[in-house]
């Protein structure tokens, strides 16, 4: 399972003076689930479009499934599945009609294959429902079914869970895991930090640049420059001020009812308590926190 499915080298795309994707280099192996994390407009979708051959790279190149992404885009498209963030469905067609149409486009005629796809995404029994009447979660599954109807070995998912409720999101990820288990490679973009945690590897993108790409654990270990503390302190604003200025504190942020502090390794709880007391505040209750991808993102985005 070490076959390289996607290899991007210095992939760059400029629109006039604006550089949407800036010398991005990464590779994805077969069977991986790779997340692409970043805010809207950071270049995630542009990257996917180049990988699908919809956009010509201004610089660099990408090889997808062994084909040149731009020059052999027909070969790539016939073998890859794509689910766009808009859920490109025909509202005035039923579930089955949508699937039949896309199946036909890929040259599929047998009803059995369509039924299998419906089973896979859990849309059996809804074949005759008009797409416009479907709840967002089911629309999402239908969009996935369309991307999957020709059994691609590589799946591009562009913000697949936007506008879908958390339960449906969870169910959707179970589906993705199932596919990866069957050897399908998945490249998924998201701006949900928690969702990125589900991925085998995560690339963090900002302003067109790929800042890092690694497993979530490795990113947390390598990118976060210190230890995470959760400081319960009152009042929160004064505590924020005090800790921000304390020696050895790298970053302080609000997190619900407490503060999230990233401090130099080995600084210790005592220094943090003293810093608060020096400002006339009662000593905070401190707990060690787990680093999250949000911490990673913020650390990288600095």
């Amino acid at each position, binding site marked *: 399972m070490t076959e390289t499915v996607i290899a991007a080298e210095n992939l760059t795309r400029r629109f006039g003076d604006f550089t949407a994707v800036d010398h991005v280099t990464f590779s994805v192996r077969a069977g991986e689930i790779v997340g692409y994390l970043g805010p809207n407009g950071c270049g995630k979708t542009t990257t996917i479009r180049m990988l*699908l051959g919809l956009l010509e790279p201004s610089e660099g190149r990408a090889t997808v499934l062994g084909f040149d992404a731009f020059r052999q885009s027909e070969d790539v498209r016939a073998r890859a599945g*794509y689910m766009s963030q808009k859920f490109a469905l025909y509202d005035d*067609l039923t579930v089955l009609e949508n699937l039949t149409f896309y199946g*036909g486009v890929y040259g599929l005629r047998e009803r059995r294959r369509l039924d299998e796809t419906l089973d896979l995404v859990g849309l059996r029994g809804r074949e005759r429902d008009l797409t416009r009447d479907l709840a967002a979660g089911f629309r999402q599954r239908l969009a996935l079914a369309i991307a999957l109807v020709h059994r691609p070995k590589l799946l591009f998912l562009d913000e697949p869970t936007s506008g879908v409720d958390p339960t449906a999101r969870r169910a959707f990820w179970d589906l993705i895991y199932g596919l990866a288990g069957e050897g399908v490679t998945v490249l998924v973009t998201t701006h949900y930090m928690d969702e990125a945690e589900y991925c085998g590897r995560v690339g963090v993108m900002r302003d067109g640049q790929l800042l890092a790409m690694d497993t979530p654990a490795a990113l947390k270990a390598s990118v976060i420059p210190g230890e995470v503390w959760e400081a319960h302190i009152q009042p929160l604003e004064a505590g924020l001020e005090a800790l921000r200025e304390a020696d050895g504190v790298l970053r302080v942020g609000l997190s619900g009812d407490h503060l999230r502090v990233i401090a130099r390794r080995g600084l210790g709880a005592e220094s943090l308590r003293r810093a608060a007391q020096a400002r006339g505040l009662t000593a905070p209750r401190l707990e060690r926190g787990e680093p999250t991808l949000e911490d990673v993102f913020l650390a990288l985005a600095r």
Partner: protein
Amino acid sequence: MNRLLSIIRKEFIQITRDRRTLVIILVIPIMQLFLMGYSATTDIRNVPLAVLDQCRCAESRALLDAYRAADYFRLAYSVQSEAELRALIERGDARAGILIPPDYNTALARGEAQVAFILDGSDATAGSTTLASATLVGQQHATALMFEKLERSGVDISRLQPPLEVRTRVWYNPDLVSSHFMIPGVIGMILYAVTAVLTASAIVRERERGTIEQLIVTPIRPWELVVGKIIPYVLLAFVDTLEVMAIGHWWFGVPVRGDLTLILACSGLLLLSGLGIGLFASTIANTQQEAMLTVWMTLLPSIFLSGFFFPLEAMPQVLQWISYIVPLRYYLVIIRALLIKGVGLAAIWPETLALAVFGLLILGAAALRFRKRLD
């Protein structure tokens, strides 16, 4: 082939599901046909005439009878003063007035009678026809009076023949019915407009919904997408053609003298241009509204420069030159000739060739613009 059939089938399902659009596609041409068939007519009949008869004698009544007998006028108002006559014309109640002076009968006996005919010239088309009719009726009455006078003076008028007689014979449309001219035009206009508008909006709709992005990542080739999407609308446009032709024939009495296959083949050539314009509009427009607007912007000049309403021969030379790049112009010549004159291909081949060339040029240019890639 599978891909093409899939697109065609999908498009048909969408058309049948969108009942409102389907009804519009099939009913609008009928409405347009009836509207144009009845309203866009230059046949002048029953022009309301105001009469100021100051003589009120047998002679003046004879003159008025002559006007009444000619189908053109309706003696709608009898007035007592010039002011009253003017008021009627100003309000538009009467389109013309005739003024017979008090000494009409005595002047007539002297051979120097004059009557005034007043005409509302604000509508130039109707005005010029009315003018011609009024003059003609007056001259015929004058000739009749002259013969009467000669007969009374003892001349044997049966020996008196005019040296020249123009015998007119109107071919193809002997009653000069306007609708026979208009309805073939309506067929052309509808065919052109329906295909252009539907093609443009069918393609732009995919872009609006974002489905085109999904289509582009499939193995569909651009030409398959375009052809598959427009074939259903081409069929609908042909249904419209036959529908308009049937109503034109059986309701308005427009003859269908030419070969039906040739008519449909030439209509197919016009479709190329309509499709090309629609496809072109779809490459410019991002929304269906923009697409509509773009198509209409090309449609209106096309209609005016095609000789649909006004004869091309009457236009300034520059406009006549421009009209040579309007495909509808050629089609109107063809369809009028085919329906009304019943000619064969031999008589219309230059127009047919021009229509085919322009159609292929427009469609080819539009297809080049319609690129598969999104950048």
